[in-house]
Each structure stands twice: as C-alpha cells, then as structure tokens.
C-alpha cells in the first residue's frame, strides 16, 4: 500500500517535471503558430474599406479568389514546382548522402557537414542575387560555354532559374538530413544482406532505403515545404513568370491592401502543407507489413 502511494507520488512529480519542460514550447506554439493561424483564418472573412480592414464574416474573398483562373494557375504551378524541386533535391542529394554516410571517414563527414552548413551563415537573398552573376547571359556559365562554341542560353527568369534557387535553399538541408538518416542505419544489417548474397544495388533498395525511410521522407518534406512557400527564387530567378502563390500574396496585398484576400491564399497554402505533412509523416512511420 505504502509502496503504491510512493510510486504514485513519484509519477506525479515526474509528470509535473515533464510539464515544466513542455510548457515553453506549448506556449510558444500557441502564441506564434496557432494564434496567428486562427487570426489569419478569421482575417480571410474580413473586408477592406478605404485601405482599412473591417471586421466582418463574409465569404466574398473566398468566392473572389476561388473564381479566378489565375489563382488556380498559380496553385497548380506552385504545387508542381515544389514537387519537382523535392524530387530533384532528393535524387541529387542521395548519392552525396550515401557517400557521406558509408564511404568516407568520420573526420571527412564532419568537415563536409560543416561546409554544408556554411551557406546558411549568409542571407538567402544575397545567395540568390549571387546567381545573377553566374546564370546571366553574360555570366560565368555562358562565358565558359562560349569557349566551346555553345550558348548563350537564357537561364535567368525561367523555371530553370527558379529551380536553381530552390536547390540553393533546400539541397544542403536535404543532404544533411539524409546523411544523418543513412548514418544511423545499422551496419550489421547491411553486412548481413551482403553475406546473404544481396547485390549492392539491391542492398540499397531492400535494406538501406527502407531502414532510413523516415529520415529520407522528412528531408523531402522539408524541401517541399520550403519550396512551396518560397517567394525569393521564383521572383528574382524566375522573373515572376508566371507567379507562384507567395508572389500572388504580395501582389494581392500591394493592390488596395487586400490582406483578407491574401489571407485566403495563405490559408489554402497552409491547408495544403498540413495535408502533405500529415500524409508524408504517415508514410514515414508506416510499419512494414510482416511477411
């Protein structure tokens, strides 16, 4: 009896201890995520009169935006570009991550990860503007191609330019996340696969990728989220041609200060990202069917 009471008291103390540590993040999320999100949803029903928002509950903004073809064109474009960015980043990053996880020494891996982190020390906008020098028709790449009689090719203000920007933003992060994920794969299982006659390629597909699945999907998810919400690359390297949803938000707020209509676009973006994130996490943590 006494032992049970002590155990309950201990459990209660433990829960209190855990709650103390949990509280800051809960408060933070409530204040800076849930609160603004609810306000944004509410704002999408407001009206604008004389450049001032009027509190209201009207569907006008939703009807207006959903009835416009340019909204849906931007939506499909943004979704498509973010998906493409995710696929490209995942495919490009994997061989590098694989090499970092399995083929190099710990020391080399540490240095490469440090070098991958370095780009984050500088402003993303500055990094994007630096691509002007490289991608311009009079830039570095076209100058090199001209020596072999090629070009000049238009790379700025194209979807290619936008994707270059997305890679600048996402690729280092995807490589880092994939590397950590692959490095945590139990090497004994890889060795066992080899001992049982599994070819190197089959080992990757049958053993390594399934074991590192969660990290690989999370890396891809981060890439999708960052690309989907990025304003800088499609604007400065893609020439806003055609505009993505973040550019549409800016355009909408610039004209007549239509923050409620911009909120409609933002809510749609959030809903899309939340759906994608839940689907990706469900896939990441889905247990393999036992054979």
């Amino acid at each position: 009896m006494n032992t049970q009471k002590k155990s309950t008291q201990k459990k209660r103390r433990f829960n209190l201890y855990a709650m103390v540590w949990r509280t800051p993040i809960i408060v933070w999320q409530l204040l800076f995520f849930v609160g603004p999100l609810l306000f944004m949803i509410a704002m999408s029903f407001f009206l604008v009169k004389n450049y001032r928002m009027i509190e209201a509950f009207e569907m006008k903004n939703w009807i207006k935006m959903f009835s416009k073809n340019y909204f849906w064109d931007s939506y499909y474009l943004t979704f498509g570009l973010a998906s493409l960015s995710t696929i490209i980043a995942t495919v490009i990053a994997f061989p590098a991550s694989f090499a970092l996880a399995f083929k190099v020494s710990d020391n080399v891996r540490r240095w490469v990860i440090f070098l991958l982190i370095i780009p984050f020390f500088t402003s993303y906008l500055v990094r994007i503007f630096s691509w002007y020098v490289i991608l311009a028709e009079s830039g570095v790449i076209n100058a090199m191609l001209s020596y072999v009689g090629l070009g000049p090719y238009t790379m700025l203000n194209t979807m290619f330019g936008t994707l270059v920007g997305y890679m600048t933003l996402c690729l280092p992060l995807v490589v880092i996340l994939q590397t950590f994920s692959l490095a945590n794969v139990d090497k004994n299982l890889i060795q066992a696969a080899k001992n049982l006659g599994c070819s190197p390629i089959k080992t990757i597909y049958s053993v390594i990728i399934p074991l590192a699945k969660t990290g690989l999907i999370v890396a891809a998810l981060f890439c999708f989220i960052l690309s989907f919400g990025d304003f800088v690359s499609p604007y400065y390297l893609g020439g806003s041609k055609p505009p993505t949803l973040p550019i549409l938000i800016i355009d909408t707020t610039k004209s007549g200060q239509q923050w409620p209509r911009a909120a409609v676009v933002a809510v749609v973006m959030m809903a899309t990202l939340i759906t994608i994130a839940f689907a990706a996490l469900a896939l990441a943590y889905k247990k393999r069917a036992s054979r």
Partner: protein
Amino acid sequence: MNFIRFKDKPGRAPYKQGREFMSKKTIFKPSRRDVLKYSAAGAAATVLSTPFVHRTWAQTTEINMLAWYGHGEADIVGAYEEANNVKFKPKYYAGGDNMLALIAQSPPGTYDVILSDGEFVQQLNAAGYIDELNPADYNFDDMLHEDFTNFPGHWAAGKLHSVMVRCGHLGVSYNTNAVSAEEAASYACFWKPEIQGKVGHFDWHLPSLGMMSLKNGNGAGLWDLDDAAWNAVQETTMSLRSQVGGFFDYGGTFNSLKNGEMQAMCGIGDWITGVLEKDGAPVASVVPKEGGIQWTESYCIGKGSDKADQVKHFIQYMTSPEGQVKSAQMAAYPGFAITKGGRKLLNEVDPKEAQRTGQVDGMANDPITLIKEGRIHYRDIPQQQSLEDWNDFWSEYKNA
C-alpha cells in the same frame, strides 16, 4: 604601462600566468609620460570625432517621414539636418496603396511629413490624413510650369494641401545595343521580334497598362476608358505577353537592365535607367511619339503633427534651388527640378546631368517642353474601372 600587473615568471605555462593575471592585480600607477601620451591621443580622438559628435548633438528634434526610398537619406536631408538641429526618421513605402495603408493603420500624428505620389494626394486629403498649407509660405512663382502650382488634387475648395517637389517621365526604356533610338520612339518597339523574351515589366499595373493605353492612341484620355477602350487595352497588353521575359521590382529591374537580360522595359523611365546610364550602362529612356506618363512627388504635412513649422521649413528647403539640386541628383533615383531656381543652379553645378536629362532651356527633350506639347500625361488612377479591376487583369496577364 600595465593597467593590471602580474609578476612575470619566465618559463611558466600560459594557464598559470592566466591564473596570476586574475589573482595578482595591482593598482594602476601611470607615469608622467603615460599621462602626456594618452592625453594627446585623447585630444586627437576628440578632434577627429568632432563631426560625428556634432551630428549626434544635432538630433534634437525628430521628424517622422513617410516617403519613397531615398528621401530620408543623407544625400538629401543630411545638410538640412546639420543646419537645423533636426533628425529625419524615415519610414519607406513602395506605391501609393502601401502609403495609404501605412497611414490608415497608424495613430494620427505618427508622420510629420508625407511624400505622396501626386495622384494620391486627393485621397490623403479626403481621408483627412494631411493638414492644410498656407500658399503664401511657398514660392509658386518660381515653378517651371503652371500645372506644378495647380497640380490636380493638390488644391481642394481653394485650399492648398500639398506642394509638388519633383517629377519624372516614363516611356520606353531600352538597351541601346538592342533597340535603336528610332525604334524606341514608339511603344511598338516592345513587340520587336528580335527582343522576344527580353521585354521586362516593372511589376506595377498602373504605369504598364497606362503605356498600353497610350499605345492604343488614347492620349490624354488614357485613364478614362470606357468598356470598349478597356477591352482593347487588355487585348493589346495580352498580345505583348509572349515578348515578356519577367516582372520585376526595383532591384530586379535594375539588375536585369544592367546585365542585359532585359533589353526593353515597360513601366519605367529615367528614374531607373538614369542611375545605370550614369554608371556607363548602354541604356536610355525616351518619351515615345504616343506620349509618356509623368510621376509626381509632393510633400504634405501629416494631420496631427506637432512639428508642422519644422516640416513647412523643410518643404521650403526642398523647393529652394539647393533642395531641388539635391532632388535632381538623388542617389536612389533622379527626378526633374521643377523650379526655375532649381534648374538654374543644376545647370551651374552639374551641367552634365542637366544635359543628360534635358533640363536645359531650349533642348528638344526638355521635360517642360514635352508637357507643353501635350506629350506628357500625369499618372492617375483608372476613372471608369476600379484599381481592383486593373490589378485583376494584371494578375491574369502575369499568369497567361
């Protein structure tokens, strides 16, 4: 001299020296030579920093400014601040909509001085955001054109609400290696097949659609379009879409013209190409035969400001010859002097810039001559459609 001394013990490890450094400090005893040496250094530092100290002391009155970028920078207001014991605290905006929103969302009296696009002054006044001005305080007799005194919307019921300080013209901006001066004499050059994918837009519907309206021959009625004329403007604009290489903000426009990615630009004028041209880039801006659009900037005193007298004095300064020259030479983006005194002084102190921009009496591209010839139309807002209609079409156009 050591401020903190510790006994030197040769051969001791640095770690131990560090511990002594912490523990065995003694009292600072400067020698006479130390005193002389550091007094001299102190005096020198004081002398060298005097201009900055003076500038700091001058910050006695803070004037809150709402303006386009560049108007609160040192090249424009630095000399005025020094001379008048004031310090400008600028808040920059981009576009009249943005300006109105910032004022609407701020308490009365937040902004002491407001630089407004000419066409938005009437909205500022209608909303009660600006104070009435006394016409006797300003030298309107010195204006280069009578329209500058009686600029549309600046007066209401015989009362003055804003004073124009500068302007500029929008037309065809182009790379001189890709488009000839003859071709640039018409907006039709934007459709030149050789520059397909190289035509850029400044990402604001008003000047670009205004130019398309001029291309359609709407002349002085470019903002006053009935349904048929508005549809025609949309058709003309859509026909340009295949030529367009991008939609840019100020930085993007600047870069794409500078690196040659864009060889013609719709919606801008010398306010961007002028900066590049002075830097040696092969770009220019002209007012084509169909006409050009004038952007106009005017100063107002914010309603509820308790520094109205200082602001009045500043507006007087900006319309004085000295202020007009600073405005014409503004680092962020150049504008025309609008007073006779300003033009005269500009020709004396910077004849090259005066020549480059046609601000010389008798030149064919003298902006005042262009206005008198009826080739310049003041930027306005759509008369028969709403700004929202124009913006909706602009979004459709960008997505086409």
